């Protein structure tokens, strides 16, 4: 569903659906995880049918998220290799955050910040999945010594907290950079958006 024939396709339907499955899982996991992390947020268990249901559901949603994240990871991995210009972008990121993007180097489909987020999320998902299995009392905890379970609990909480912060940044960046969210909703961006924010990608897909 292209709004303007000159718009550029950034994501196909399958990529968008994949992203939203992961996104919905993340929201469910963050809410249920926070409910069990801090007493002040325990009332969030009400969203899942109470404390017991929250405890039962959280790990299964985690497994679904991991499956779809792995799919997405291998889909976008080749587009997220860090290059020299990406590091240059990261160094100058402060200028852009301050509102001046004139000196930012030309970026391909993803900028240095997006790429670093991609790799951080890969690491975080791996740690969360492994530690989540270890602290999954109903099925797996009895296979692990107590010291490993305790470490798993701390790592799970720590990586989850940092990942929630990273996703807040991710979502905010999409809101802040006007014209971005439509890429994940119906797949296209305007040519001007592409030229402004991802000029190398713009040249690549338009040949200009």
């Amino acid at each position: 569903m292209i709004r303007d024939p000159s718009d550029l396709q950034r994501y196909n339907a399958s990529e968008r659906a994949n992203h939203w499955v992961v996104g919905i899982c993340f929201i469910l996991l963050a809410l249920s995880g926070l409910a069990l992390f801090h007493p002040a947020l325990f009332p969030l268990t009400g969203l899942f049918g109470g404390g017991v249901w929250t405890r039962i559901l959280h790990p299964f949603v985690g497994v679904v998220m991991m499956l779809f994240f792995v799919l997405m990871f291998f889909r976008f991995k080749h587009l997220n290799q860090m290059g020299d210009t990406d590091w240059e972008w990261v160094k100058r990121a402060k200028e852009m955050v301050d509102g001046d993007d004139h000196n930012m180097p030309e970026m391909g489909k993803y900028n240095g910040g997006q790429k670093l987020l991609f790799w951080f999320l890969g690491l975080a998902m791996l740690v969360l999945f492994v530690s989540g299995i270890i602290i999954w009392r109903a099925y797996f905890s009895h296979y692990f010594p107590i010291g490993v379970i305790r470490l798993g609990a701390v790592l799970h909480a720590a990586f989850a907290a940092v990942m929630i912060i990273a996703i807040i940044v991710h979502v905010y960046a999409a809101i802040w950079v006007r014209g971005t969210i439509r890429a994940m909703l119906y797949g296209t961006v305007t040519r001007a958006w592409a030229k402004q924010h991802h000029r190398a990608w713009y040249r690549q897909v338009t040949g200009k």
Partner: protein
Amino acid sequence: MALQSLDIAKRSATTTEPPQARKTLEVAKLIDVSKCIGCKACQVACMQWNDLRDEVGTCGGTYDNPTDMTDQSWTVMRYAEVESEEKGLEWLIRKDGCMHCEDPGCLKACPAPGAIIKYANGIVDFHQENCIGCGYCVTGCPFNVPRISKKDSKAYKCTLCSDRVAVGLEPACVKVCPTGSISFGSKEDMKELAEERVTELKERGFKNAGLYDPAGVGGTHVMYVLNHADKPSLYSGLPDDPTIAPTVSLWKGFAKPLAMAGIAAAALGGLFHYVMKGPNEVSKEVEAEVEKELEAEK
């Protein structure tokens, strides 16, 4: 609370102060292992009073039966055969169960408000109606005591017969012990009793006899008189110096406010950045350039 004996001193996953106006006596159970003959009357009494019936298990080649605590066996006798040059072969028998820590690791780890309660008298009790079955109490306990039921996924352990104590009775195991190995009373009195017994044991040649009331967990409301108090681990792995693990303290301590502050800062940071710097729009220049490029194409 109706009964002063059930005044609450600590409540799991609760960040505000418990009621503290009334002061109540701290109780303790004293288990004198040097008087224990391993008859398991305490195990039977525990089952009977609490209406528990464990499955008939298998013999593991020792007197330990059942071989471990379960949701149906809140206390078990553990039999250790220990050889030393000085004493030769010794049969060290210990009644294992919840130690009722002053600073309970289970309560610290529990995410469900009111699932674990520490009464003002020192008893640590699980309230299964609030338990969500996550098993964090197992993760937090320095003594490996809580057991999760396979039937209902709730955590169970010795209640120190909080229901009996609430109405002025001693715990069931204390009531039945035929050798007087288990005593119950105020923590102060139990310490005095222990001191007398330790002096006796020392006179009888157990020079390392002593009271096990580990300071690492703030002391316990179940204490042991050990004839080898210098090596608690001889008694089927009783921890020498139990404390709440640093990983658990970090997870349930510093990590909580830090993570909440970080998440709040990220969300507020985003809002204020948008308000103060404005959105990142496509510039008019670039829009005009793209228009021209498209015109040229036509």
